[in-house]
């Protein structure tokens, strides 16, 4: 695969690493009992701890710790029995403490990896450096008033898992696939709701460019991207910007950038004078976090089937391709739907590929067109299974089945009902098909002559005519076979 970007003098390669911030799905915050509910009135879910009132002390949420461990296991990562909370010091209006409680030297989760799958059947491992627990900051609204910033502290103190990757990513697409994969794992584990629109999942992107084979170049960090589309756009723009600077003889300044979603451009966020100096030190209000082997074991045993395991199971059981299986397992609701469909009739196991196609292309495109979600699909897995069985037993043709599915989608009727009501059964009676073909041949002597003279393409013309006479219900394969036989006999 060629991942290089053409430059003026030579090709360039992107080197990309992601820091993903995933909000822990919990009822209360990491160090206080305030609710984590999204979309409440401003400052309505702020305890004295979250507002950093003097004398308040943090008490850790046990469940958030378990969720982080669970996620670590899902990322095939090392769980650390001993980790430490540090203070990351900086001033900002939405950070009342003046520091964020985070983990620096001793994170709760160490090295791991996730696998991304490409369309061509290959896959690639992206290594994880670490996962640590930290507090989210409040939210600032800058665009409401020309001279004021408005601050809402409801998000202040919500538990975040920061997942840091090695710079193993080489293209914007890989970055998109990586974050989708992380999102999918988090959602199977139910440790984060994965809602990028509401900011439950967001990413900082580190990017540099280099001549292939060279050392890493100087990187820039693009902050706070909350959609896969923006991540790709920002990477493309930033790589182009860096290449232009380097090719005109300049050098890259290490910088923190913001991506403007309306212009599609990145620009530096802070000036150099205010370069990061977080002065990390262990938080004296919190003892080290120790987790016993038993606790880790207990969490491990509670972990559900993850997308990769499920993918391998699908490949093995149903002989599906790696790519098909990864599409099915990317979202839990899709794999659940597939499971229910294929188990609705014992016959369907032998037609797994057809089941995949009907879910991921036909049903998905109908859902898309109607702006509906799979878990609210008007066609139940059982009903789709029934439709596919009608196809696999040759009772209806694939072409007619598409119309039937649309009908099922809008009317809520079963495939059987629609086929019976509209009399759509496929004609598989040899005699009946032969009769229609004889009719077509008799009506078009000139065409027959041309066909026999070598104009093979005319076969389609006869098929079309005969299909029309059977109202599209003739079994296409039988129709083709008999037609060829009859025409060749004329020779």
């Amino acid at each position: 695969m060629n991942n290089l970007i053409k430059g003026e003098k030579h090709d360039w390669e992107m080197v990309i690493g992601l820091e993903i911030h995933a909000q822990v799905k919990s009822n209360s915050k990491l160090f206080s009992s305030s609710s984590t509910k999204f979309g409440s009135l401003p400052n309505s879910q702020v305890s004295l701890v979250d507002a950093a009132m003097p004398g308040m002390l943090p008490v850790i949420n046990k469940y958030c710790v378990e969720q982080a461990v669970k996620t670590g296991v899902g990322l095939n990562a090392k769980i650390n029995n001993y980790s430490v909370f540090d203070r990351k010091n900086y001033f900002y209006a939405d950070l009342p403490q003046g520091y964020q409680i985070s983990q620096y030297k001793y994170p709760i989760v160490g090295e791991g990896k996730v696998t991304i799958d490409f369309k061509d059947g290959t896959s690639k491992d992206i290594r994880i450096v670490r996962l640590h627990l930290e507090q989210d900051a409040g939210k600032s609204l800058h665009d409401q008033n020309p001279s004021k910033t408005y601050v809402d502290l409801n998000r202040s103190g919500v538990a975040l898992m920061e997942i840091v990757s090695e710079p193993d990513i080489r293209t914007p697409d890989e970055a998109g696939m990586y974050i989708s994969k992380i999102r999918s794992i988090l959602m199977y584990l139910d440790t984060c709701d994965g809602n990028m629109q509401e900011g439950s999942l967001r990413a900082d992107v580190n990017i540099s460019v280099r001549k292939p084979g060279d050392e890493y170049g100087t990187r820039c960090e693009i902050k706070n991207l909350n959609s896969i589309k923006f991540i790709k756009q920002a990477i493309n723009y930033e790589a182009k910007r860096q290449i232009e600077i380097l090719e005109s003889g300049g050098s890259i300044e290490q910088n923190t950038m913001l991506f403007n979603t309306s212009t599609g451009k990145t620009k530096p966020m802070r000036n150099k004078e205010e370069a990061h100096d977080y002065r990390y030190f262990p938080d004296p209000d919190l003892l080290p976090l120790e987790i016993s082997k038993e606790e880790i074991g207990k969490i491990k045993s509670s972990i559900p089937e993850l997308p990769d395991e499920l993918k391998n199971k699908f490949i093995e059981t149903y002989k599906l391709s790696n790519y098909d299986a990864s599409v099915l397992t990317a979202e839990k609701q899709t794999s659940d739907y597939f499971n229910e469909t294929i188990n609705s009739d014992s016959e369907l196991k032998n037609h797994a590929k057809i089941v995949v196609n009907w879910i991921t292309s036909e049903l998905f495109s109908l859902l898309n067109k109607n702006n509906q979600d799979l878990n609210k699909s008007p066609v139940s897995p059982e009903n789709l299974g029934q439709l596919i069985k009608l196809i696999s037993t040759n009772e209806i043709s694939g072409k007619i089945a598409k119309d039937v599915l649309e009908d099922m989608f809008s009317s809520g009727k079963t495939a059987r009902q629609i086929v019976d009501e509209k009399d759509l059964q496929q004609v598989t009676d040899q005699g009946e098909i032969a009769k229609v073909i004889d009719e077509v041949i008799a009506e078009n002597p000139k065409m027959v002559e041309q066909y026999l003279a070598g104009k093979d393409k005319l076969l389609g013309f006869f098929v079309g005519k005969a299909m029309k006479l059977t109202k599209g219900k003739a079994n296409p394969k039988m129709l083709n076979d008999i037609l060829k036989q009859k025409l060749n006999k004329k020779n």
Partner: protein
Amino acid sequence: MKIDKNTINRIARLSRIKLDDKESEDYIKDLNSILDWVEQLNEVNTENVEPLSNISSSILPKREDLSNDSNSSEEILENAPDKLEGFFAVPKVVE
């Protein structure tokens, strides 16, 4: 380790504290004498000794994941110098 004028200015800026020349001089003197005093610890051989993270031998207390649904907004905003519609209002932080 010695604290000089540059270091004291940097620390002051990071802490958002404004120091005049006289104060800077005083702090340089104070901080250096503290550092000198702490330097004495270097005389102790600490090889193979794990850093002490806490003098308490207790373990980190944890709470259950229960949320209290108290509407905090009035109380939280009580001391805010400026507020609007439930938000804190602060001087603009970006251009």
